[in-house]
């Protein structure tokens, strides 16, 4: 584990500062209250120092990447909204959400250092996750753009699926760790695939189906995809059976086709993906504008503040990557993708080094979710896969998403602390050295 990441932290903050300086001095953007910048930088530095103190064996490089991603996100959100009436305060709102997220991360660090305790409450967590998502069907929930994803709790709007999925990863990690030996011990088989006893399989299938079903009816396609794929990957990691993945993919294909037939909005999404050029002013508008803006960036980009991606609807959330590709070019966008990949690499490393199955599966599940979310949205805005509306972790505007991802990072940190502590000193050093070499 890399306990020290002071230089990456400093670089991340310098990049963010440069971004804001460009916008304010070259683009003559009206400066946001500087105190927010101070809050942001101070929060991230305090977070880093806090983790260094309380989790001396944790992998703090994760925090440097979180700082870089949230910083780039803030710069882009500010760039996209500072002159747009009605949303001109979005960047400061996002800064506040980062503050809240940091608080949540510190909360996890301080009170869930023995995260294994969470495993004892796995059924409760699964129930909580399902209830959270189901709450959007109560009068507390409301619809945005045809999808019922939101909860209004007093003054705060929440997207419960962002939190529910972390709870579900904890549930699956815990449950699969407990039962993974039993999954192999089975006699029945279906189409050549050996099936575990219903006793073990049942709870997994139930929670899986319940959460997935709710999301499908919420019309939250992106989250549905995540909720489907992450448990499947965890199942593979736990059992090593490719057959589950294949079976799951087949199920997914059938399920997708069924939703395609049932829901008109899925049909629209698919046709907009297959041929957006046939209707570039209506259903294909978002994706063609995204592609035009990405292409406009070329290799070196149009320059920060010089692009036209504000024409893309929802640009500051789902399509923020298009803006980055447009204004920072292939080079900037590739750098960002590599930053995500490093986060995923470090997450995987934590899973590899963790000692017990539960910790391994937890770190793996969280990392896989983070990786898949990135792949789904970046693939969506680049027309590699059909577009499903989810956020780019840490970069997109969105309070629930930011806080959820900070919690995710917090959990990865406590797992890495646990793993790092149990590492023999020598191996620790070696692993740290290898990691430094990769990130250098």
């Amino acid at each position, binding site marked *: 584990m890399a306990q020290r990441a002071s230089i990456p932290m400093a670089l991340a903050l310098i990049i963010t500062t440069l971004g804001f300086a*460009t916008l304010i001095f*070259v*683009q003559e953007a009206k400066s946001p209250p500087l105190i927010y910048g101070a809050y942001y930088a101070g929060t991230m530095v305090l977070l880093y120092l806090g983790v260094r103190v309380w989790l001396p064996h944790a992998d703090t490089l994760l925090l440097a990447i979180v700082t870089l991603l949230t910083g780039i996100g803030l710069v882009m959100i500010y760039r996209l909204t500072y002159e747009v009436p009605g949303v001109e305060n979005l960047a400061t709102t996002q800064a506040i959400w980062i503050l809240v997220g940091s608080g949540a991360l510190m909360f996890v660090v301080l009170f869930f250092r023995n995260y294994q305790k969470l495993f004892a409450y796995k059924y409760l967590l699964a129930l909580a996750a399902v209830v959270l998502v189901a709450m959007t069907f109560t009068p507390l929930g409301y619809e945005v753009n045809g999808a019922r994803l939101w909860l209004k709790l007093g003054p705060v709007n929440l997207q419960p699926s962002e939190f529910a999925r972390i709870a579900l990863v904890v549930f699956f990690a815990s449950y699969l760790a407990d039962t993974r030996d039993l999954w192999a011990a089975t006699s029945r088989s279906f189409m050549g695939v050996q099936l575990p006893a219903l006793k073990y399989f049942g709870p997994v299938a139930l929670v899986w189906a319940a959460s997935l079903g709710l999301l499908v009816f919420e019309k939250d396609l992106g989250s549905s995809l995540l909720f489907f794929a992450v448990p499947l*990957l965890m199942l*593979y*990691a*736990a059992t*090593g059976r490719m057959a589950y993945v294949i079976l799951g993919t087949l199920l997914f294909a059938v399920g997708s086709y069924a939703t395609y037939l049932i829901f008109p909005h899925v049909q629209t999404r698919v046709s907009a993906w297959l041929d957006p*050029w046939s209707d*570039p*002013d209506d259903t294909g508008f978002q994706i*063609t504008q995204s*592609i*035009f*803006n*990405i*292409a*406009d*960036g*070329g*290799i070196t980009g*149009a*320059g*920060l*503040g*010089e692009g*036209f991606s504000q024409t893309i609807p929802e640009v500051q959330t789902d399509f923020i990557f298009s803006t980055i*590709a447009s204004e920072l*070019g*292939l080079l900037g*966008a*590739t750098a960002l*993708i*590599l930053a*995500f*990949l490093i986060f*995923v*690499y470090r997450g*995987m490393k934590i*899973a*590899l080094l963790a000692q017990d*199955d539960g910790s*391994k599966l937890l770190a*793996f599940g969280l990392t*896989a979710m983070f*990786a898949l979310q*990135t*792949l789904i949205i*970046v*693939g969506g805005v*680049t*027309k*590699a896969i059909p577009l499903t509306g989810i956020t780019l972790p840490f970069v997109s505007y969105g309070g629930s998403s930011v806080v959820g991802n900070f919690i995710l990072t917090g959990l990865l940190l406590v797992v890495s602390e646990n793993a790092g502590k149990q590492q023999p000193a020598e191996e620790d050093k070696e692993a740290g050295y290898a990691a430094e070499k990769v990130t250098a």
Partner: protein
Amino acid sequence: MNAHLRRTFYFFAACFVSLVGILAYWQVYVQESLANDPSNSLQSRRVQAVPRGLILAGDGETELARSEEQDNGTYERVYPEGSPYAGITGYWSTRYGASGIEIGENNNLSGNGEPETLDELINQVSGGPQAGNDIELTLDPELQRAAYDGLAASSTGRGAAVALNPKNGEILALVSYPSYDPNNIDENFSDLIEDPDQPLYNRATQGLYPPGSTFKVITAAAALKEGVEPSDKFKDDGTYETPGYTVYNYKAKSYGEVTFQEAISKSINTIFARVAYEYVGNQTLSQTAYDFGFGDTYEDFPLPVTPSSLGDIPPEQWAQGNIAQISFGQGPVTSTVFEMAQVAGALANDGKLMDPRLVREVRSPDGVILDQPTSSVRQNALDEETANTLSDMMENAIEDEESTARIPGVKVAGKTGTAENPTGDPHSWFISFAPADDPEIAVAVMVENGNEGYKQALPIARRMMETYLKSQGELPIESTTGGGSTTPQPAQPQNGSTVPATQPAPQPQNANPSQPFRAPSQSPVRNPNQPPSQPPNQAPGQPQNPGQAPGQPPVQRPGG
């Protein structure tokens, strides 16, 4: 379990790398075709996001084009002076491309050129907005207006006028009529392109017309070079016979024994045909025409200029009938009004043809002078002595014949032309300069199908010279000009403007001038900042044949 974790990580890593590949596909491989996609408005938005430079007239005050900021932050091109300057400014459209100075000086106006000041360099490096540079032209607004009004009031309402300062080559006026309003070009473009009068087409610089008798000054220059004197006597019996082709004088007149001076004053075709064939010869005549700028594309001039031409037959193969026709500007000879103004200018400037210039100064938005082209001799068309002799002959042609071109108090030198053509009545031509002893302005005017030169073109040219000389203090403002009305007036026919009337030429294919025009572009440029799909020196919707009314069959009228 670790093996499974690693495998999953490799899978994720492969996916991330593919994303980079997909990005590279969009941002590099298909980047250009996407930029030109019809539903992609990003390029035109980029063009509209920065103000283009001003285009100013020669007084430094009259704004011919400026960019006005709209509510949505983009800039719209506005042409406060409208139609009279459209032939020069051109139009600027994000849908239909651009023309005129707008495209000819686009590198300066758009601010996309090389950075010239530290400020521009900083802006370019930082990717900041770069306002375009301002361009001051050489045009005299009063003169431009006079030329425009004159052409508007002409009998057919189709024609062109070019005026220049012979001493330094500055273009003082350049008008093509009918013109168009470059404002709101996007809404009007399709109508303009359908208009039978072809207003988008610059008759002054791109229209090729038979120059008729105005070409006689070139033949006369060649004759003087070959030793012919103004006082040399020639006998005219009304015709000049060549094998298979007979030259007649206008209205079959016969003049008897006349001097060469009288031959140019009375514009006697038969004597010019004889002199050209017997004294000048193919080589000297063609070389003299090239020395005056025939065949020149004027590449460095910001507006596209169609080269004037002596026809497709190489001079060494001209038969006697060819050179006879060419000597008085008919047959295969075609020229632009712009070129004939250069001819007048060279004669006015002791035989030295100056580089024609339309741009006086290029300034950065904060006023730093970036470019200030200086005048230079383009080529020596004629030696000084011969030029002055010819200039005297042209002055005498106006003074002796009591021409309506005379301006009291100023000596004018000039030559009319009445050019037979396949489209109807002859084109009315006049080229001149004044004051003849120390010329400050040279003018060429042509009115399509305006009949005799003195009827339509001459009054416009005279009014232009008067206007300019008054503004230069050469003439009293309340000058009483003999019959100096602004509209073309019917005056008694004069000998000085004869019309050639000839038999069919031996090479009838020459009667219809070869068409140096390129086919009109079918695909308007969407983005003027990108390399246009059409060459910039080509106006869209350019007609195939100048002065030819659509629907009218190209009648093979005798050239001559």
